[in-house]
């Protein structure tokens, strides 16, 4: 057991899989000599050499396109988008090829690649470095979109993502990269993709969130439990697509009250989908309207203003209170 931050935990998963399987290669911009702009790939080049830790030319579509080719031959490329804001150039390779190679060949071909990308705001970075656009990826059938929230689940989910037979988008909440440490087991650990985690059980209300929002959510819940004397169930979604609908529905049937917290704008988002699934399967169990705490449907403002828009601990707590009191 070691106390690791998320950067170290992700690095551990990469080290473990690279050691385990010589088909695992890491490629991206500045991932080798520079060890990644966040140092996630630290030590890999030294240990595994240039053939497996590839500093690519600066071309996102090229990184994914060539990774698709590698994956088709049985290799396991783990590519890095330096920031999710630069990843939109990969869309046609993902939607047009990676996601559909399996179905278009009825299983003759598959593309087991992982695309890691830091996402989200809160680090006072320049434009294009703050968005939370998981919806883009979640909408594509054939790929999985995973968002860890802590060092331990980041490590376990990345190991599973690398072992997964399909393309996985692995969005890393960069605000949480070095924000805290957590005990991470020394022995390799896996978490099933497509499965949410019940972080704590409760009876009065369900709070659903993922990624960087889990930290303010946990703090808001701690305060709410004391101040409102409420028993709160917390679900960490972890895989935003495919969604673990059952975990959500079971919880809603028990508590009847729901708050969903997401960093992304509200319109056509993961929270919209969760509300729709509750509507499909648990509408009559609701005792209050499902409350959403989200970003606003605006272009992400520059960093001096961005925190005014991202759900805060206070906003989350007020939403919990409002839903409990309805």
């Amino acid at each position: 057991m070691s106390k690791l931050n998320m950067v170290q935990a992700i690095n551990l998963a990469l080290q473990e899989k690279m050691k385990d399987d010589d088909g695992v290669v890491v490629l991206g911009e500045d991932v080798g000599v520079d060890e990644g702009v966040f140092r996630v790939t630290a030590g890999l080049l030294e240990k595994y050499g240039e053939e497996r830790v590839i500093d690519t030319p600066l071309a996102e579509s090229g990184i994914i396109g060539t990774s698709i080719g590698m994956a088709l031959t049985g290799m396991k490329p783990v590519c890095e988008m330096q920031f999710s804001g630069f990843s939109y150039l990969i869309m046609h390779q993902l939607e047009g090829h990676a996601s559909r190679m399996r179905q278009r060949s009825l299983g003759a071909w598959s593309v087991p690649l992982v695309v890691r990308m830091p996402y989200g705001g809160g680090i006072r970075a320049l434009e294009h470095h703050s968005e939370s656009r998981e919806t883009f990826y979640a909408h594509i059938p054939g790929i999985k979109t995973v968002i860890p929230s802590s060092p331990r689940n980041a490590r376990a989910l990345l190991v599973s993502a690398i072992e997964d037979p399909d393309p996985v988008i692995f969005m890393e909440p960069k605000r949480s990269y070095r924000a805290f440490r957590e005990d991470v087991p020394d022995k390799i650990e896996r978490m099933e993709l497509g499965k949410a985690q019940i972080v704590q059980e409760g009876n009065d209300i369900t709070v659903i969130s993922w990624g960087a929002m889990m930290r303010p959510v946990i703090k808001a819940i701690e305060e709410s439990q004391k101040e409102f004397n409420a028993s709160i169930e917390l679900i960490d979604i972890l895989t935003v697509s495919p969604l673990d609908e059952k975990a959500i529905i079971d919880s809603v049937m028990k508590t009847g009250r729901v708050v969903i917290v997401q960093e992304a704008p509200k319109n056509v988002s993961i929270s919209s989908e969760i509300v729709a699934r509750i509507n499909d399967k648990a509408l009559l169990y609701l005792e209050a309207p499902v409350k959403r705490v989200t970003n606003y449907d605006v272009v992400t403002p520059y960093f001096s203003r961005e925190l005014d828009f991202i759900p805060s601990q206070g906003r989350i707590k007020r939403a919990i209170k409002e839903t409990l009191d309805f």
Partner: protein
Amino acid sequence: MASALIAYEKKSNKNKLKFDTVKFYFNKGQNMPKKITNRFSVSYLQILDENGKVDKKLEPKIPDKDLISMYRWMVMAREFDERMLKLQRQGRIGTFGPSIGQEAAHCIPAYLMNEKDWMVGAFREAGARLIRGETMEQALHFYNGYEEGNAKPEGSNILPVSIIVGAQALHAVGIGYSLKYRKVKDAAVVTFFGDGATSEGDFHEAMNFAGVWQVPVVLICQNNQWAISLPRHKQTRSATIAQKGIAYDVPGIQVDGNDPLAMYVASKEALERAKSGGGPTLIEAVTFRMMMHTTADDPTKYRTDEEVEGWRPKDPLIRMKTYLINKNIWSDTKEEEMRAEVKKEIDEAVKNFEANPSFDSALVFDHTYGNKHYTFEEERTEFLAERAKEAENVKA
């Protein structure tokens, strides 16, 4: 400030050498460069001209049986395309992009590939796909809207048709990386795309990655002069497509793509270079799209009959036949026999395809992901129930 001078030589149709020099100066006027730092050239290869006359100095030594076999494949590709056009008009297949006139440009390189080589195509290489092991039944499935058409042929590495223009060139480079990393002997990747693809970012990224990584990849541009309605001169200002290799230090050659012997020599050299660690090659096969872009397109809207007719005498099949006859290894009788055989094979494929029962649509749910998430099982159940209700409606 860097300066460059690009010279390209071009062989005219009359076999006379003509030299044009195009100069590009990054500094103009008084800042004219004082020293030329680099000089580049692009070569053009033609061996068998449009009259079937062979350039003896350049003629490759190809065994007769291979010459006949290559010719038979080109005829097969032509006959199959023509049958597909008929089937499409009769509503027996869907939209289809014929490659009539371009047979030499894609069949010859495919013929030179072995079972360890990878073919990463676009959508106008039906003949190459057949040569690499795809069956005509598969092509018929594909153009009838069934994924079964993309099943991997036994013992052959051929990727599904790639409709998004240019994207597949990057897959080829990634496969090339893997072959190099795994030290696979005697294996290379051949990727096809059109002149339109050379405007796409992915083409340039593929060329750049291929150059940097020195992977065993042969990039073949079937420059058929038209990308749907856009003529070659509006696609790029470059005098040749082959010269685009210069920027990436990928050897490039412009080839008469309707000359089977030139395609043979250029492809063979490129494959040998790839397999001996010499890295990638760009081949610009100059050819012409004799038909529509796809059956959904009407080319009379944007090009003249005169232009098309001007290319008809340059047909690769006519040229190859003349060459074989001049070599005394072919005759009209043999031609008739071979055409009859090929047509019979096509008849049988169409018959087999049409005798197939309809396919299970629910299997799509089995192949969206490699491991099943329970939510998809629920959707599949719902889908089957709805299909059953539809069937009842039809009966009622």
